[in-house]
């Protein structure tokens, strides 16, 4: 725990100070929240009709639930696609063939650097102009953009997973006469995939959050449905609060699963089972890049 690094066990004076600080801080926090509540009350945001319209059965039936269904649908398709795309690219970055490695590297770095929203808008406009046979074009654009971005993040997770394994794993494979690709396939990848599971679950949170970007290209996901409801009932604060709570509950459950998995799986693989940060490009390979300059076999061989 971080607390134990900075703070020693407290003596009587420290404990008394802590209690006083605790009370003062609690009062300050409650006062701050109360001030916000009073300000909202003065603006009439606690009118019961505003809240009733935001949580009524009709709101759930006609707005939130269909929206949530679309959100989950795009997230599910995007997850499956991203895992496939990421596995192919990740193995490509570890491949023995220099051309395959280089091409996969360029693809991964490109899609990790381009904002998901730019891709979504581009694909949406591209499909609208060139591929009108696609019935649900916003859906296709959302899924494709999420697959490309999250797939390249997963590719990096695969590479980091193999890179974080102890060098002895690859050396043992070579020592018993496997070729470098066989070592990768039958010794390194299985352990790396187990090790990266928690980070993959964390990435699901990113997929789910980014699916809300679909609102901007008018994909009728949860946030978009809430906006339509709020423009009808004039209660954006209330509806957005409901939607935020739905997202927070789902994502919090996923984060908890990732946390449990990280503990559960740490005994089953030689790799590191760290969770992802839930934002950005979560790859930290201790000791520098792995597999970029040399294949796993060569890397293991060079480890003198």
């Amino acid at each position, binding site marked *: 725990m971080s607390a134990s690094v900075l703070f020693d066990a407290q003596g009587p004076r420290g404990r008394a100070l802590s209690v006083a600080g605790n009370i003062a801080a609690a009062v300050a926090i409650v006062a701050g929240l109360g001030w916000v509540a009073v300000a909202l009350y003065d603006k009439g945001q606690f009118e019961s009709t505003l809240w009733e319209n935001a949580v009524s059965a009709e709101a759930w039936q006609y707005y939130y639930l269909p929206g949530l269904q679309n959100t989950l649908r795009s997230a599910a398709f995007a997850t499956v696609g991203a895992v496939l795309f990421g596995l192919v690219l990740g193995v490509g970055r570890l491949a023995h063939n220099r051309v395959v490695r280089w091409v996969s590297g360029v693809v991964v770095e490109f899609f990790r650097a381009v904002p998901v929203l*730019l891709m979504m808008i581009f694909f949406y406009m591209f499909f609208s102009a060139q591929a009108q046979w696609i019935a649900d074009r916003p859906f296709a654009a959302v899924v494709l953009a999420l697959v490309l971005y999250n797939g390249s993040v997963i590719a990096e997770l695969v590479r980091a997973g193999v890179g974080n394994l102890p060098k002895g794993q690859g050396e043992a494979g070579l020592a018993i006469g496997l070729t470098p690709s066989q070592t990768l396939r039958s010794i390194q990848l299985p352990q790396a995939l187990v090790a990266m599971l928690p980070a993959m679950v964390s990435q699901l949170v990113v997929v789910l959050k980014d699916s809300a970007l679909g609102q901007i290209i008018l994909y009728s996901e949860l*946030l978009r449905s809430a906006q339509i409801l709020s423009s009808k009932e004039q209660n954006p604060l209330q509806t957005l609060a409901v939607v935020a709570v739905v997202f927070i509950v789902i994502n919090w459950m996923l984060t908890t699963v990732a946390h449990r998995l990280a503990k559960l799986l740490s005994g089953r693989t030689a790799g590191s089972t760290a969770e992802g940060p839930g934002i950005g490009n979560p790859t*930290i390979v201790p000791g520098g890049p792995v597999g970029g300059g040399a294949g796993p076999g060569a890397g293991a061989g060079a480890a003198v």
Partner: protein
Amino acid sequence: MDDFFSGFAELFAQYDVLAAFWVNIQLTFWAALLSLVLGTVLALMRISPIASLQWAGTAYVTIFRNTPLTIILTFMYLVVFSQLGITLTDDLNSTFFWFAVIGLSVYHAAFVCEAIRSGVNTVPVGQAEAARAIGLSFLPAARLVILPQAFRGAIAPLGNTLIALLKNSTVAVAASVATETSSLMRTMIEFRPDLMVAIFLLFAVGYVILVIPIGLGTTWLSQRLAVKR
């Protein structure tokens, strides 16, 4: 081919792509500053021995880390601006700009907090014990022994958050900032649909050029400053 280039030259004359990127860089700069301050405060709250502060910090991180950024920025426009009628300046455009900065900061502060906390977690307990054993009290131990190592450990995750912030600055369009890159890309594609792919690649390469140096820089810095253990 000539057609293609003349079309591109015409587009460049009509739309200022660099100005749009400059808006995103400004959004990123101010949001980075603000979220660094807010995130550091949150991290201090979470590692303090005071239970109510820990609780408040944890609640903040749990709420904002799990909320889509799009909701926060839509909230800034639809609720804070339209419904509650709060304005920051007389100029609408700069009001939207600063609302977007606030929304981006509020969201990324949760990740800055976690980055700093993970930096503190890289410091082994033995370091703190050794500091106490040679007679340093709390503040000198924190200032001389623990925080210098913690900041070095936090550089890589902070760099990762900065890259995410730069890319997420495009979502400012949800807070009605109409001058940034994603809105300009949309306008340009609407104007010249025949050059669609080239326009997208132009913006995409712009972000690659911005993101890759940040990534290389923070990786270099974190490895150079890494505490060898």
